[in-house]
């Protein structure tokens, strides 16, 4: 090819530059770290000492215990419950847990707040329950950041209040049941009412009496929540499927309409498919 002019040369060089920069911009660079490669998780977990919670007897113990509780594994659940129950009589510990809720909220660590509310609820302590009751009735934000159609500050508060109401229902006494029923009847959040109903029913063994008692209190739109399908750890297919079948028989209106196809011209598939068949590393 013969280059006719300086302008043509500039154009050619620019095209080359586009090609080169294109290649350099899309070059695959792997992620990097300053740390040395470590062992696989199976070795890390094998070295972990299980079922050895730190003490929970003084307020100073609280942050360390919460750290441990957050990390605790499925197989440590019962040991954690035992450790929490043993601390029930220490009001200093309960007070420190309450402070921990406030502190984690100020630090905006939602998952820690959830964790501490769960611990307070599990304790079945009167002081803790009073705090949970106040927490459940904190006003919900009416304005805030809209994310995917919801006010996220409100949703966050609803999730936390739902966890708090679990603790109230777990007190399993007429006095606290009355408070749970108040939440069921009048709380402004349907998610919190739904959890209150779920917790009340579960703590009463899903009895007919509990169902009848609540059905007189809830609004018409919430009646379905009394029969909601609960999937529990340990539910086999047979158990879960029979619950679902009964629910659908009682509430056939929840069966949705058939899905519809898009009304659009068929798309030509012009994209080249990627292939990746490398197995993930061994755990």
């Amino acid at each position, binding site marked *: 090819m013969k280059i006719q002019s300086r302008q043509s*040369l500039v154009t050619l060089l620019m095209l080359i530059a586009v090609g080169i920069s294109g290649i350099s911009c899309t070059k695959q660079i792997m992620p990097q770290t300053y740390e040395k490669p470590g062992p696989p998780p199976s070795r890390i977990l094998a070295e972990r000492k299980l079922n050895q919670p730190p003490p929970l007897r003084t307020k100073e113990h609280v942050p360390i215990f919460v750290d441990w509780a957050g990390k605790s594994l*499925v197989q440590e659940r019962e040991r954690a419950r035992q450790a929490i129950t043993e601390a029930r009589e220490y009001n200093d510990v309960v007070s420190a847990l309450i402070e921990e809720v406030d502190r984690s909220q100020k630090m905006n660590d939602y998952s820690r707040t959830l964790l501490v509310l769960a611990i307070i609820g599990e304790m079945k302590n009167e002081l803790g329950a009073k705090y949970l009751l106040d927490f459940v009735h904190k006003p919900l934000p009416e304005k805030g950041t809209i994310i995917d159609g919801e006010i996220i500050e409100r949703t966050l508060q609803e999730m936390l209040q739902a966890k708090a109401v679990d603790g109230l229902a777990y007190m399993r006494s007429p006095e606290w049941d009355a408070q749970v029923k108040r939440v069921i009847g009048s709380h402004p959040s349907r998610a919190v009412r739904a959890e209150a109903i779920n917790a009340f029913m579960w703590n009463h063994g899903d009895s007919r009496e509990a169902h009848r008692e609540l059905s007189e209190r809830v609004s018409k739109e919430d009646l379905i929540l009394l029969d909601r399908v609960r999937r529990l750890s340990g539910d086999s297919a047979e158990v879960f499927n029979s619950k679902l079948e009964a629910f659908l028989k009682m509430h056939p209106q929840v069966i949705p309409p058939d899905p519809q196809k898009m009304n659009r011209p068929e798309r030509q598939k012009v994209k080249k498919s990627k292939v990746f068949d490398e197995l993930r*590393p061994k755990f």
Partner: protein
Amino acid sequence: MNSIFVSLAVMAVILCAPLSINAVCDQSAASQADNDLWSTHGCWQDYFLWQYRVYDMSEDDWENRGWYDACNVRFEYPKHWNAAFLVSYGLLDSWRFSFHGTEDYESLAVGADNNFHDDLYHLCSDRTDCFGMFEWRFIGTNRLYTCCPVYNPTVSNSNPASRAGEFMHEGWHAWLDKYDWDNGSYGGHRATQGACTAANFCDYFYFHGIGAYAFGALYQTDGTANRFHSPNQVQVEFLCDVVDYPQDWVPASVRLAAQADANTRAVQRFINGPGYSCGDPRPW
């Protein structure tokens, strides 16, 4: 000749700049749930060196989001692969108990074309009004964005389970696209109606029993409500499987966050809701 080199330099900068100059999400901290899951692997390099390829991620998009500091869980990229780690290894996969298996959830999330979707490319968006987005592209690979609220520690969804749940949700939009299903005209969702309270982010819940889908068959449908899923439903079922049938090493803080997300979403986002309630309501 100098002007030629200047032109070339300017050209190269312009071409590369939009790909490498990004704003970033809140990189000040990670949630306790992120940190707790992190402690189970201690930053497993073999995994993230596999993960970035299988999720089709690129330095161009994640450069100042922890690509060069992949063991620092304050950044978006480490948080992304922490969630992917939960998907890859965190489920028990019991056909008698789980809604779906790792094979389903991981296929939904990864980049390569499969039964669930055409090719996907994972990016992070600085938008603060979404958890995630699916974008169909006429030319080039379809995109799956995760937005700042699943990385910003101040937001409830900034935990590994909810972030992974977002992979499922957006991955299911890719499924709807692949098979030409219409899930509504509000960005792939339906208007607020029935029991749904989220503003125009509503779906139907297509109830099904356990064992209705063999592992790997989540993508299947018979074209009726008997055998179909919506994005929020797939997300809830994934979160439920994390809550009820995780591997025994999945930390409590991760399971609690998954349960709160699943149960709230199941009440708020379904026209014919509520969806299933996950786990028992005992506080701990």
